[in-house]
């Protein structure tokens, strides 16, 4: 589904990704862990198409398309979703209006008819229930005045609405209390199926108690220095990153 080969990227003159390779197949959950500054969020941004980053080498293919050639909205149309680490507040645009526009733009991209108001609201209610979203939030400006937890939950709610093929969760767990984390994780688990895939970027093992990853990768200094199964996450939690760094240096 997603195939990253030797991806290198920089921002201004600073090299951040120094050759990342990663294969994700449908039905898989991958976790990327790593200390601050290792390039985790850069990877997420590059996948979503943020243009501040310059791609200096490598390739990314998604469902047989050259992802790096596509505009951010085209990537979303193809089925990529990024849950932002810092969701943006947009005063004057309600969550409902925003989501309706997004859904219908994606449908247009895929050659589908737009959803009418009734269909859309039905879906909205259904998904809001899964994430225990207060429906009054939907009528408010997008993320404006939302707490950190509400913003993160709103990201996953949007994901539930848009049903992406590949969802990248950029530190969705940070800033969430345990109850909110559980709700978010349950939401992800309900959406998971054999056709879609998840890439979970996190500092902490905690979220992986609720969302079982098939693979765990350690990102350090712009490279994946170790990959393993879910037990790797537990090991990192216990021993920190130093041993992996040491192992990689050998």
């Amino acid at each position: 589904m997603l195939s990253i080969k030797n991806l290198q990227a920089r921002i201004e003159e600073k090299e951040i990704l120094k050759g990342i390779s990663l294969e994700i197949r449908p039905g898989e959950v991958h976790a990327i862990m790593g200390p601050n500054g290792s390039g985790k969020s850069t990877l997420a941004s590059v996948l979503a198409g943020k243009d501040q980053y310059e791609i200096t080498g490598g390739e990314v293919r998604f469902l047989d398309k050259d992802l790096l050639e596509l505009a951010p909205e085209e990537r979303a149309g193809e089925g990529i979703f990024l849950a932002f680490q810092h969701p943006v507040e947009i005063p004057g645009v309600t969550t409902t209006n925003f989501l309706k526009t997004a859904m219908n733009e994606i449908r247009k991209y895929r050659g589908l008819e737009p959803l009418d108001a009734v269909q859309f609201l039905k879906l909205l209610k259904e998904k809001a229930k899964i994430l225990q979203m207060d429906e009054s939030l939907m009528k408010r400006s997008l993320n404006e005045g939302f707490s950190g937890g509400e913003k993160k939950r709103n990201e996953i709610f949007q994901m539930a609405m848009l049903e992406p093929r590949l969802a990248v969760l950029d530190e969705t767990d940070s800033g969430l209390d345990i109850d909110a984390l559980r709700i978010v994780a349950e939401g992800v688990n309900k959406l998971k199926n054999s056709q879609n895939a998840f890439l979970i970027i996190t500092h902490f093992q905690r979220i992986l108690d609720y969302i079982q990853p098939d693979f765990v990768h350690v990102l350090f200094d712009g490279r994946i220095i170790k990959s393993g199964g879910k037990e790797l996450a537990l090991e990192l939690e216990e021993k920190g990153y130093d041993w992996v760094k040491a192992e990689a240096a050998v």
Partner: protein
Amino acid sequence: MTDTDKDFKYIFSSVAPHTTEYTKNARQTALQHLEALNLPTTKHEEWKYTNLKNLHKEEFTTSFSLEIDENTLKSMSIDGLEDAYKIVCVDGVFYAKYSNVPQNIEILSFLEAEKAGKLDNLFSSVASTENDYFNALNATYAQEGIYIRVPKNTQLDKPVVVFHLTDNQTHNKAVLVRNTIVSESGSEAKIAQIYQTKGNKTAFVSEVSEIFVAQNAFLDCYKIQNEEAQVYRVDTTQVHQSTYSRFAMTTISLKGALVRNNLNVQIDGEHCETYMNGLSYLGEKSHFDHHTLADHRKPNSYSNELYKGLFDGNSTGVFNGKIYVRQDAQKTNAYQQNRNVLLSENASIYTKPQLEIWADDVKCSHGATTGKLDETALFYMRARGISEKEAKKLLLKAFAGEILERIQIEPLKEYVETLIS
């Protein structure tokens, strides 16, 4: 005196105003002031960013249109406001036969009102001619415009919509329009003025409105400035507010070659509320200059001003907003905000918020911001599948929405939404 000054002063001199003793004196005073004044240049502090030099290149005449054709009449309509009270003015001339005037308020042409003595003690009483070239010019020669009086304790059930058409189909023309609005005590009314053009010759319009909001009166006003690119307009709205009155003016500026708006409110009573809202959404070479003044003269009043601007193409905006709190005006609450977004590299905005406070127990704030469309928000929206074009549209609508929400006449709000989308 330069040649160009000569043009404007003498172009109207053939006009012989009909006057009462009061207006005759007022006009004579205005003429004396006019003779001492020159057309302002950019050397004048209040005209620093608004250059009138292009006006000099044009020849203007003062003849009016005498008829309106069917199609033009039809264009003077707003969906959902078909049954509102309607006033039609072409080049300032009030056409009673095309208007639908409410029974319980008084609407006259300027000339009728002047002859009947309705303007005595009002005309030129708040719009000072002493140091203002255009006020002086207008007070000296203006013959057209409307007079609206909302009698004591009258609550208007429907808004009054005034369509002002500038007819510049056949020749360049210069027009002076004089309006007087009297909201008597305890009255409530909503008045929307829609400015449109027909034709593509050049027009110069000087419009002066004197508005009197008596004790306990509520007056909610709107101006939709949507004249084609050949119109030069200097518009002065001078408001006088008495105790416990509420006045709101929302100015939507969309089209025009060069428009100068002076909105000055004398808050001359206690417990008044004053709202000044503005939205400019400009493109091409439009130049709009908003000068506003909230003049707090008495204690315990509240004023709130929010002007927002979106500038595209080669357009220019000027915002010069002043809050003036006199020594007597203790416990004043006055707020002012000016927020601008530049949508093109060639657009510009000059903003100057001013506070002048002589009382010591007041709450005042002001601020101005200018930026581009929020790039982070754009990316966020695009990452959700929304095309760049659609995302920009949503952001612009959201930006404008804050002002549109303040429009208390729903069909008018929808009308403006259509104009800007």
